[in-house]
């Protein structure tokens, strides 16, 4: 019997037992659905993470800290070695980079620039013509990633904004109740308060003698500084950019100036929690990273970050796929059971086919093809369901997870799904192997004696 004839007969046999075929396929469909969704979610998560990193991190940059970020002791707060360079950041004590470290980093071949991370805390910020004081974070404008603007203009990629210029996020304009275009060209004033160093007893006495209570008050008074900046642009809200909506952007020159002023005289002076090394276009990022590591720093490239995220996505995807595989294993027994019953029911048919000269191999093939059809139907149902539900749910998921317009969590890749269906057909054929062997070995005389 030719393959195509066997396939047609197998399909007809299944059509004649519609209910049973459908129920058996549905068991596979459950597994297929789960796996299809996990594949789609993994693909979506990877694409989203990739987009996220690309719009936040320059691929030519290396993120440098004094010690590994994922240091177990740093995370769990265990007993740690004392270092006079250590500083507190986000409740975690970590060793800081010093000015010497920055100088060391600059000597590494291939390093184009070293940008220390300046921490600038403002007391408050005020906007031109508005009484209300606001609080805001201040960050250095990253010239390597071009943000979209709601109003105003940004310098070309790779160029810093001017020392007296600032970029504010669109959300600020919303809070102020103004249009972004109205804010461009106006002044934003940052008010900084220097913690200063605590005067010694001798200094206090000296001041007392010199100018009485007023002089002591002046000595203890905190120094404040007002920094007026012109708003150059209002950056548009971006779903993939981390920092765009959270802080006022200033130039690196200004940031260094302010940071130095704020920490002057304290132990935090010229100490940085991290630095970003920009690798020259001609140099290899990985090589530079390795030489930075050789100097005793901890370094991470954009690739490392995406690698970390991808590993996490893969683990999660693996777990979901595991559930799908479990469902498939259950469905395999369903196929075996159904096909065994089918063999018993069709004993006389098998006997007749053998009497008419069909070899046992052909009979076995007929039952395996039926199993393959069941796998195919189940796979297609599962994949189509996953695709339908996934496509329908995507806008909602995007909204709930605030992924931002144009991003979807579930991305279906056609070749993955075709491979999945083919894989399920193979699984079904394997499951159908036992019943098909029984059919192939059936004694035709015994078979024809029934009825």
């Amino acid at each position, binding site marked *: *019997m*030719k393959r195509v*004839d066997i396939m047609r*007969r197998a399909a*007809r*046999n299944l059509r*004649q037992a519609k209910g049973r075929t459908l129920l058996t396929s549905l068991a596979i469909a459950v597994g297929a659905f789960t796996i299809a969704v996990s594949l789609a979610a993994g693909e979506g998560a990877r694409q989203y993470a990739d987009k996220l990193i690309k719009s936040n991190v320059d691929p030519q940059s290396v993120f440098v800290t004094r010690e590994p970020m994922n240091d177990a002791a740093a995370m769990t707060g265990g007993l740690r070695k004392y270092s006079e360079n250590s500083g507190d950041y986000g409740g975690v004590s970590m060793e800081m980079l010093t000015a010497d470290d920055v100088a060391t980093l600059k000597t590494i071949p291939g390093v184009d620039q070293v940008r220390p991370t300046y921490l600038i805390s403002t007391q408050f910020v005020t906007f031109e013509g508005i009484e209300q004081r606001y609080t805001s974070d201040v960050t250095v404008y990253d010239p390597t990633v071009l943000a979209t603007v709601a109003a105003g203009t940004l310098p070309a990629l790779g160029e810093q904004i001017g020392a007296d210029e600032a970029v504010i996020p669109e959300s600020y304009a919303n809070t102020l109740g103004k249009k972004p275009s109205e804010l461009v060209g106006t002044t934003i004033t940052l008010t900084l308060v220097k913690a200063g160093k605590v005067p010694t007893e001798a200094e206090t006495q000296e001041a007392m003698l010199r100018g009485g209570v007023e002089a002591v008050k002046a000595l203890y008074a905190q120094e404040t500084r007002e920094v007026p900046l012109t708003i150059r642009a209002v950056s548009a809200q971006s779903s993939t950019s981390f920092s765009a909506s959270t802080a006022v952007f200033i130039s690196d020159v200004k940031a260094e100036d302010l940071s130095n002023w704020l920490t002057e005289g304290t132990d935090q002076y010229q100490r940085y929690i991290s630095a970003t090394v920009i690798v020259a276009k001609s140099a290899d990022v990985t090589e530079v990273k390795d030489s930075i590591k050789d100097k005793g720093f901890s370094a991470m490239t954009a690739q490392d970050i995406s690698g970390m995220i991808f590993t996490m996505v893969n683990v999660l995807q693996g777990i979901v796929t595991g559930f799908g595989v479990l469902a498939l294993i259950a469905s395999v027994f369903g196929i075996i059971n159904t096909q065994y019953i089918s063999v018993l029911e069709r004993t*006389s*048919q098998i*006997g*007749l*086919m*053998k*009497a*008419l*000269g*069909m*070899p046992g191999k*052909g009979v076995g093939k007929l039952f395996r093809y039926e199993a393959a059809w069941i796998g195919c139907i189940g796979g297609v149902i599962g994949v189509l369901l996953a695709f339908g539900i996934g496509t329908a749910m995507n806008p909602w998921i995007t909204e709930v997870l605030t992924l931002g317009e144009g991003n979807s969590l579930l991305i279906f890749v056609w070749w993955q799904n075709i491979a999945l269906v083919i894989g399920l057909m193979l699984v079904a054929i394997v499951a159908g192997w036992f019943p098909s062997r029984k059919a192939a070995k059936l004694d*035709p*005389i015994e078979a*024809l004696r029934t*009825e």
Partner: protein
Amino acid sequence: MIEVKNVTKVYGKKAQAFTALGGVSFTIPDGASVAIVGKSGSGKSTLMHVMSGLDRATSGEIRIGGENILTLKQKKVDAFRSEQMSFIFQSFFVQGNESCYNNVALPLEIAQVPRRARREKIESALAAVQLLDKKRAKAKDLSGGQRQRLAIARAIVNDPKILFADEPTGNLDSTTGEVIEQLLFSYNKRRKATLIVVTHDHDLAQKCDIQIYIKDGHIDTIERHKEKATTADKRPLSARRIML
């Protein structure tokens, strides 16, 4: 020519051994109609199975057209059966859920007849048993007589040289049975095919050229005489169909 030489068939082993056929020999010329007659348990069905290669004889020789099928490999025997032989059973064994067309197509598919050549063969086989108008009907919707006619169409579609019929009229009333007999003998005469009928119906056996009587796994008697039965009903088949 079919030569059966000293064929034995033993089921089971040692103490449980049961001899179904104990040294059977006879010859059937091509184109003859043969009745194998015996009571149930006499070994007549076993003889048919052994002759058709469905079952392997324990010893002896079965030569069909000079070839000893007992020395052939199973694959060759299967191919031999699909090209040269066909079967009709007491309980029809038509596939109820398949259309008449697809029931008749089965032997052609097994014999790997090309798709294009099938249609004509199937339609002429269905026409021969007056079932062409039921081509698309499901076999389960047919009456008993129609089912057996369908089984005959299936049996003759690939032009077999040997046609085995195991109690072909056993499940049918006498009028319907007669039509079936008529169809079998007409194929036998028209195509010069050997017809081997296994039966315990003496009337049917008398219509055959040769009667082989089997008793307890041995040949009791072999009668060879020209029957008179085929002349018994001279009405054309179409006229008799009305009675079905």
